Structures are given as C-alpha cells and as structure tokens.
C-alpha cells in the first residue's frame, strides 16, 4: 500500500511538475509528512531526489525539442545559486512569515497577469535590451510550436532584471521552502518576455541543477532511504514522461492560465500558513 501511494504521488508530481516547469515538491512533501507520517527531513530528502528525477527527464526532452534555452538557464543559475546561499544565511535574521505575506501579494498580482495577459514576445522580436544587444547571444531565438504548427521567434529582454529576479528567487526558495520554478517561470515569462513553453523548459533545466546540490547534501547526511525513494522516483519518471509529451500539444495560452492558477493556489497556501502561525 505504501509503495503504491509513493508511486502514485510520484506520478502526479512528475506529471504536473514537468508540464508547469516546477519541481513537484509541493505535492510530495505534504503526502510523505501528513499521509505517511514521515519525519520532515526524510520527506524533503525523498522529495529532492524525485524532483531531480523529474527535472532531468523533462529537461532531456525539452532540450532535444529546443524548448530549453541552455545559455539563459546557465546564466540565471549563476545568480540563483548564490541567492540560495544568501537565503540560508538570512533565514537566521528575517522572519519568513513577514516575507511570505509580501511574496503572497506579489504572487497574486503575477497570477492575475498570467491568467489575463497574452504570452509576450511570441513572433515579435524586440531589439531593446535583449541578450543580443548585451552581447550574451548572437541572434534571435526560435522554437517550433507543435500545437500551432509554426516557428516562434523571440528575444530575451531585461537581462539585468532577470538576473536580479533569479537571485531573489534563490533567496526566497531557501527562506520560504518553495520551489524555484514558481518564481523562475513568471520572471522569464513576464519580465524577460520569454515564451511560456521556453520559460517552462528552461526552468526545468535550472531546477535539475539547483536541486541536485541539495539532494547530494541530504544523501551525504544519510536522509535518503533508497527503498522509500525507488517507487517515488519510478512513478515520477513515468509522470514526467507523460507530461513532457503532452506539453508540446498544449497551446501556450492554456499553459499560462494553468500556471496562473497554480501561483494563486501557492499564494493562498502561504497566507493560510502565516495565519496558522499568528
């Protein structure tokens, strides 16, 4: 029964995690701690290994389909990782509840923008402040959208804001214990005007890198129980495979709306968590 529950949890986390460019820890950790009554460290360790599995499988498919902008992912990771380290230090002096309230308000605003707005930059490259003009990349980027059966051109804009936002994402993910994808995808899509599918593909690529460091630490400290992790990982891989097949056939507007709803749920969960602590 426990094995089936673990595999099913992994399946759902892998499916939604890969389709929305998030880790899936928001689903795994509550199931392991609340339903299976596992200690939080073991739940987090198991969740991190499953997230790595999810992100690696999804990233392999998105990278092959040109839905991952590798250079952008590496560039943003270079500020997310230091951000996570700073977040670890700030955790001792900043009250996470106060930050959670402000971040929750920001999430509601971004959710509204994603649900009501259009996918920015699709088919209209812009020269202003793009990667090309700041010297990081040589030309306009493109990907093939299977749902629309056409090539989509895009330019990445507002790099300094994106780098700053990624640093902030790293800080918040450590301070609030939330996945990086919930922050990274809106930053890329709304601020840097990257199409939603590229934002999800690139976020998945980044999650694999940033989560691996944490998973290695938990493994090093003997929190990873292989028999517990095995069914979770196998379920996650199956779910991630299905999610990555489906994403190519879904229209960007539907994905943006789904992500907006996810952000809104995350914001409500944060407000409830803070309210329960007051």
């Amino acid at each position, binding site marked *: 029964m*426990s*094995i089936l529950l673990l595999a099913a949890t992994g399946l759902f986390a892998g499916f939604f995690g890969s389709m929305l460019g998030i880790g899936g820890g928001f689903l795994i950790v509550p199931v392991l701690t609340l339903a299976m009554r596992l200690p939080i460290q073991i739940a987090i360790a198991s969740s991190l*290994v499953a997230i*790595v*599995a999810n*992100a*690696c*499988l999804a*990233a*392999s*498919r998105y*990278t*092959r*389909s*040109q839905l*991952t902008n*590798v*250079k952008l992912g*590496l*560039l943003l*990771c*270079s500020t997310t*990782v*230091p951000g*996570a*380290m700073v977040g*670890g230090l700030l955790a001792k002096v900043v009250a996470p509840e106060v930050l959670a309230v402000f971040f929750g308000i920001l999430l509601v605003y971004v959710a509204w923008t994603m649900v009501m707005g259009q996918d920015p930059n699709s088919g209209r490259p812009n020269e202003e402040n793009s990667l090309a003009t700041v*010297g*990081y990349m*040589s*030309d*306009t*980027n*493109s*990907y*093939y959208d299977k749902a629309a059966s056409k*090539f989509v*051109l895009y330019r990445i804009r507002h790099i300094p804001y994106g780098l700053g936002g990624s640093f902030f994402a790293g800080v918040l993910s450590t301070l609030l214990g939330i996945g990086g994808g919930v922050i990274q995808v809106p930053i890329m899509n709304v601020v840097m005007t990257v199409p939603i599918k590229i934002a999800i593909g690139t976020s998945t690529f980044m999650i*694999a*890198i940033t*989560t*691996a*460091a*944490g*998973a*290695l*630490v938990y*493994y*090093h400290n003997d929190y*990873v*129980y*292989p*028999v*517990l*992790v*095995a*069914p979770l*990982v*196998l379920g996650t*891989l199956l779910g991630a495979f299905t999610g990555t097949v489906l994403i190519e056939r879904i229209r960007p507007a539907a994905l943006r709306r789904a992500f907006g709803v996810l952000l809104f749920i995350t914001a409500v969960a944060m407000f409830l968590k803070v309210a329960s602590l007051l």
Partner: protein
Amino acid sequence: MMKKESMQPPTAQSKWNINGLLSACLTSCVLISSILIFCGFILFLITGLDNSQLLFVRLDQIPAAIVLNLGIIALISTPVIQVIVALVRFSLDKDMTFAGISLILIILLGICYIMTAN
C-alpha cells in the same frame, strides 16, 4: 535578423550542438539510473523483507543496496555532469563567456555542497 539554421525543424539540427549534446547526456544518465533503481527495487522485493520494516531499511541492510545506491547516486549526479558537459562544449566552441559561467556554476555548487554538508 535570424540565422538560416534556426528555421530548420529541431530534429534536423546538428546532433552535437549544445542542446543535442545535453539531451543525449541527460537521457543516457536518466536511463542508466532508472534501470539501476528499477532492478534494485525488484531485487529488494524478491528478498522478501517483513512489511513493517519495508520502507526504512538502510543501505547496508539489504542485498540489493549496491544497485539501488548506484542508481540514486547516478541520478543526483546527472545535473552536475550536464554542467561539466556544457563547460567542455562551450570551451571547444571557444565560447569563453558561457564556459566561464559554467565553470563559476560548478564552483558555486561545490561551495554550496561543502557549506551545507559541514
């Protein structure tokens, strides 16, 4: 103006460009690790441990441990391997900006690991 090759469908692009290379690397590592985890888990199930201790056995307590252990290590090392592959690819392409970024990232991950592990 967009380059001519970017108009090609993804499957027609060079297999060994950065995306093709990283995809091959990720696919191979995930395949190897999932096979090891699957085999290790099946081996564990047929050894027939008591259900009450099913999920909490430690690495050194089961015969299938070595296989499961190898699978998990291969899995969580995969993202680090892909950054190393990116570093090599960018260096060979003389793209020193992104070779540098990849190198910085590897160093940062190392520092992060050492800081938190200790």
